[in-house]
């Protein structure tokens, strides 16, 4: 087996259809929990962190198993994470800049 073919052999491994169904069920349950949390007033105080954690869980499941990144080369992981981390940093920085910090030139009382 050539080096190229050998590399291909390590790339693109997949899980079984049964496992994909299980992930689909988990994604559905997480979505149902998200919506339930949204409608329960007693959970309003933990709404934002709970929703962020749950949606992060869905994100990881889709990327790792449906996009096969868990079974693929780390090069693909690096290419995706480079964009994703930069994107997350940009969103966070802009929210902090415009929503958390006081407007430029205004001294907080």
């Amino acid at each position, binding site marked *: 087996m050539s*080096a*190229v073919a*050998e*590399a*291909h052999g390590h*790339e*693109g491994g*997949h899980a079984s*259809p049964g496992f*994909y*169904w299980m*992930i*689909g069920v988990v*994604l*559905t349950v997480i*979505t149902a929990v*998200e*919506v339930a949390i*949204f*409608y329960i007033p007693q959970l309003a105080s933990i*709404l*934002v962190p709970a*929703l*962020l954690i*749950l*949606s992060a869980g*869905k*994100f990881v499941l*889709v*990327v790792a*198993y*449906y*996009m096969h990144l868990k079974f*693929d*080369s780390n*090069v*693909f992981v690096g*290419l*995706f*994470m*480079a*964009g*994703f981390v*930069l*994107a*997350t940093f*940009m*969103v966070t920085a*802009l*929210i902090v800049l*415009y*929503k958390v910090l006081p407007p430029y030139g205004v001294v907080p009382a």
Partner: protein
Amino acid sequence: MAQAVTHDEHHYTSTGLDSWKVGFWTFIGSECLFFATLISTYMVYKGASITGPYPEEILDIPLTTISTFVLLMSSLAMVLALDGVQKGKRAGQFWLLMVILLGITFLGFQVYEFSHFVHEGLTIQRNVFGSSFFVLTGFHGAHVTGGVLWLSILLIRSLRGKLPPGKSLQLEIAGLYWHFVDIVWIAIFTLIYLIQ
């Protein structure tokens, strides 16, 4: 050997990785930044509208929950379609058709939502909520539309026998795109609809 070349459409880079996949993962990385700009814009202008309708008055959570479920199930159908095509099973074509139908269903929900919002007085020019919301979800809908067209072409190719297991990379790449559109919606559903 000639037959192997015919059926193996992989083009390897010097890393031993397929060049199409390297290129497409790079594209997906750049798409993360594209949608991050649109999400940032929505978040920065959140609560800045000086005239209604406001998000809490108009966003329909039950309806969007159903459309979110539809898109999640389309991702499940997509991996099953790829699995079927890679194994040369006809089930691959069935699941590919399901992905397309679920994608069209999601777009139907979006068209209904947009027309309902316009009927309620929320247009892209009405306020900053309308502008940032329609641009963000509109671009996402355009991506879904592109994905439906792409997958439809692959389904036609598959029905004509032009998508054998050796060429399943074409569907794998389209699948990466489809799943990416799904994870963007996961972010939109949480940040725009649920965290108001």
